[in-house]
């Protein structure tokens, strides 16, 4: 299957500082279109119109965390099969494997360098579509 172009990213992160930095990085440096949301509820409100190519989800959020947000988004037609990446600062032994079993392509660990983040995401995307990983999406 030819690799689809990564253009629209739905980003859910409750921390306003990090949300701003990441959005700026992805838009200005990566030239992606980004819908940045502070919660699962906000993501649900715009996801059908935005129709993201990729979901970028913070793991630790109040109320509805990243894994639960992914589960909710999987029930929407517009995001049922959209590949997803988790972002987290809290990684313990076995966490990454556990997250991958939820169907995410990869896990980006905080802190990350916002200057290289778009390239990192692009690489994960390319690996996914070239079949370099089997975690699905």
């Amino acid at each position, binding site marked *: 299957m030819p690799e689809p172009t990564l253009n629209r990213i739905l980003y859910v992160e409750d*921390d306003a500082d990090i949300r701003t*930095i990441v959005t700026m990085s992805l838009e200005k440096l990566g030239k992606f279109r980004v819908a940045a949301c502070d919660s699962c509820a906000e993501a649900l409100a715009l996801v059908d119109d935005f129709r993201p190519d990729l979901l970028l989800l913070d793991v630790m959020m109040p109320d509805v965390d990243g894994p639960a947000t992914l589960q909710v988004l999987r029930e929407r037609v517009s995001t049922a099969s959209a590949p997803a990446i988790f972002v987290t600062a809290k990684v313990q032994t076995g966490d990454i494997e556990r997250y991958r079993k939820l169907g995410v392509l990869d896990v980006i660990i905080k802190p990350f360098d916002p200057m290289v983040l778009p390239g990192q995401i692009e690489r994960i995307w390319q690996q996914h579509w070239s079949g370099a990983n089997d975690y699905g999406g």
Partner: protein
Amino acid sequence: MTTADEEFRREFTRLSAAFVAELPQRVQILSDDLAAWLSAPREALMFERLSHRVHQLKGAGSTFGCNGISNAAAVLEQHLAALHSAASSASGGTAVALEEIEAAIEALRDETNRVCGESAQGGKSGARK
């Protein structure tokens, strides 16, 4: 360096400075939340809010290159989890964990003062350039 890079770096520097400027207030709010939770340690929502603030500070600190802040918040996060666990089980480990938490919040205040002091002197703000 491209114009987009320059623009991003400029904006990042501005946001980093804003983060440092707001640090004392964030640490004070966190400290107030801690005091409130310690007076009612079985309040799950209070603990959730407190641990979430600490977690955010840890993440934002490292994102802005303030590793000392992030490390101090990480220590506080660990001690809070230990204290929460002890308070829930009433296993007797509370007193030790409480001292550690006080030390951790003091370390966070000290690091905040250091970072803000450097920023005020126009030196390294502690933030990634």
